[in-house]
């Protein structure tokens, strides 16, 4: 199978006579569970899409640092065959880099030279469904295998040395709107993956598959069959009145409560895992339809929530809902980060933090999910929670921000988390509609507020106080992700092509490079032969319509 696929691929994208793929590096060894567990202190590899199981996106090497970053230079540019939105975070194992693109290509390349070892093009099934671009955010690696979710809702396993397809399994029915863009994660021989589809009336979940065989192990549905009405919460997580007509909702719920199969709640960003307590933490997307709440009375649990479940069984542990009965699409999407935090009494406890689309960083007690504090607002908030109307109601933030799917980074020494924010003023417009059977189901429209400036920022938040330590404004709304390093640096890219390094403590821009297309992906760092590199995908973004490209750029001193 490999020989056939390889021959086809060689013709498909390499073109010229005599061009041969590089023999796979002998240094590439299977990634063990011990390596995955130790990733936070691994100053050689980048083994998880967000750095480690805690998802700190913190790289412990100091070779590239605030004093010398001004001399950072491009070392190579790897160009893929797909010019479209790029949101991949490359995985790097012993000098071999794994990259994904829109439409589910995977490349294995030399992380020093950019020369290709192999690539794989997923043969898409007849039905692909996705709301916001044909993205893929990367892979998980373990024990000589590489795992990727696909736009036609499959999970595939490839041999890391050859790119050979080992197995594939359908996660859910794409005809009903299920698809995959998230990077899965692997632990204890299980591949964990959620689903897209919050805009399609799916029933969200996290599933665990056997990493060896692809056989389904367990499923946790983010929409419970019973009890999704919750506690009829009147206020959001910060205590603000959400203007729900709870009496009317209860009347509607008494008439119809059996809509859990179409209530949404996608899990489309990577979970964090606490290996000590065998707990999985993830955030849940919006209810369906996005803007039309009359179809779905109640709190719509566990949409817009942070949820903890058991790694071994998938059983529920706790949840915390930020917005009940969301009609603004301000769901929970930025991956949670596991850190120690100060509780309200100043005592250090295990915590979990999440950057919200509301523009707050939320700080929770990891043991029960309770909210300890929320940060200062990182973006303008106005008229919260004005209900959508038929002709459009303005409320800020718009549906894309504060913090969209962009993963935050965290620097434990500085006690700071770094969040990328969008300020995209919008109006919210509702138009009632019934479940459209697997088609896009917004129940209205989002529109940019005419004439209002759009912008973004990188914000450093002290998680023990919730105070903003520094904020660096950007010309465009920020989407993609942050990287923090022990070199006192924070890296983040922009829609206009600029890739920047900030001083982690002050926010001063220390270096920037114009990449030529939107830099809207999470940067990573790694070390090969004693030299540290910074890598980032440069392909723009569908959702924000930033200039498309097809490259991964790699920088070094």
């Amino acid at each position, binding site marked *: 199978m490999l020989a056939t696929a390889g021959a086809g691929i060689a013709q498909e994208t390499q073109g010229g006579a005599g061009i041969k793929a590089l023999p796979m590096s002998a240094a590439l060894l299977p990634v063990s569970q011990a390596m995955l567990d130790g990733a936070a202190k691994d100053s050689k590899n980048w083994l998880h899409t967000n750095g480690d199981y805690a998802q700190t996106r913190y790289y412990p090497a100091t070779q590239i640092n605030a004093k010398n970053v001004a001399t950072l230079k491009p070392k190579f540019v790897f160009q893929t065959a797909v010019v479209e939105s790029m949101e991949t975070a490359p995985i790097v194992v012993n000098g071999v880099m794994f990259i994904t693109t829109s439409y589910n290509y995977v490349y294995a390349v030399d992380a020093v030279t950019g020369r290709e070892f192999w690539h794989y093009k997923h043969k898409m099934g007849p039905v692909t469904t996705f709301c916001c671009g044909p993205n893929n955010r990367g892979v998980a690696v373990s024990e000589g295998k590489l795992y990727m979710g696909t736009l036609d809702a499959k999970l595939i396993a490839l041999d890391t040395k050859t790119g050979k397809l080992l197995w594939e399994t359908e996660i859910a029915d794409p005809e009903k709107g299920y698809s995959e863009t998230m990077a899965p994660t692997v632990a204890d021989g299980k591949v964990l993956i959620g689903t897209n589809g919050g805009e399609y009336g799916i029933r969200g979940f996290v599933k665990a598959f056997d990493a060896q065989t692809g056989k389904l192990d367990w499923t946790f549905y983010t929409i419970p069959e019973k009890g999704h009405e919750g506690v009829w919460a009147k206020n959001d997580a910060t205590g603000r009145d959400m203007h729900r007509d709870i009496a009317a909702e209860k009347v509607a719920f008494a008439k119809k409560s059996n809509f859990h199969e179409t209530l949404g709640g996608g899990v489309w960003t990577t979970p964090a895992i606490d290996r000590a307590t065998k707990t999985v933490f993830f955030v849940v997307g919006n209810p369906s339809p996005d803007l039309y709440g009359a179809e779905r009375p109640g709190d719509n649990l566990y949409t817009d929530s942070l949820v903890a479940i058991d790694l071994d069984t998938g059983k529920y542990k706790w949840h915390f809902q930020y917005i009940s009965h969301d009609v603004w699409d301000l769901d929970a999407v930025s991956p949670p980060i596991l850190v120690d935090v100060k509780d309200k009494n100043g005592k250090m406890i295990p915590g979990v933090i999440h950057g919200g689309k509301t523009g707050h960083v939320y700080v929770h007690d990891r043991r029960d999910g309770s909210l300890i504090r929320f940060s200062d607002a990182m973006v303008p908030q106005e008229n919260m929670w004005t209900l959508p109307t038929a002709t459009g109601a303005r409320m800020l933030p718009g549906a894309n921000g504060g913090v969209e799917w962009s993963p935050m980074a965290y620097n434990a020494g500085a006690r700071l988390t770094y969040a990328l924010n969008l300020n995209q003023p919008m109006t919210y417009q509702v*138009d009632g509609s019934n479940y459209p059977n697997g088609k*896009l189901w*917004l129940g209205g429209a989002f529109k940019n507020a005419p004439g209002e400036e759009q912008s973004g920022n990188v914000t450093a938040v002290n998680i023990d106080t919730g105070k903003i330590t520094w904020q660096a404004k950007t010309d465009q709304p920020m989407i993609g992700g942050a990287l923090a390093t022990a070199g006192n640096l924070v890296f983040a890219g922009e829609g206009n092509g600029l890739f920047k390094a900030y001083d982690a403590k002050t926010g001063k821009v220390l270096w920037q490079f114009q990449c030529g297309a939107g830099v809207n992906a999470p940067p990573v760092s790694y070390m090969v032969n004693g030299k540290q590199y910074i890598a980032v995908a440069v392909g723009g973004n569908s959702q924000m319509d930033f200039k498309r490209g097809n490259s991964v750029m790699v920088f070094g001193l």
Partner: protein
Amino acid sequence: MKAAHLVFAVLTALSFQSHAVDIEAGKKKAEACIACHGVAGNSTIPMFPVLAGQNARYLYLELRDFKEGARVNPMMSPMAVNLSKEDMQDLAAYFAAQTPAAIKFQADPAKVKLGFAKSEEVLCSMCHLGGMKGQNEIPKLSGQHYAYIKKQLMDFKARDRHNDAGNMTSVTKTLSDEDIENISQYVANIN
């Protein structure tokens, strides 16, 4: 109307011959479509949409909506009513695989500029993607006839077309006739 009945009979007969997505089968079934949609889906009559190169999932779901009455058109509804799922998938696959011919349309540059600005405001590209190339069931708009685009926007606004789950009816609700004219000019100008 007689021609439509004949075409309908041909499609009904063919629907029993195919059980999987099959472009070649779709080609035969599409013979009935040539009168309006042109050879290989390249309509030369501006009121009929170009189907060549359109997203297969969009085509399939629109046929399904015509068949089930979610979308109504006096010409298309009777054409679709007896199509099987296989017919619709074959037809969708065939048209999606065809190469669209360039549309000859003389756009008004001033209207194109205004249309672009309005399309940015109402976030067309968030669903239809940059260049209006579409994605899965969100249609490709580039290379489409100006007259067809304008009619669809007007139909959504008037709710004469409403198989969009509230999306396009909302988008068009606050557009003026002038906005629709400008957006149509802008979109028809993208090839």
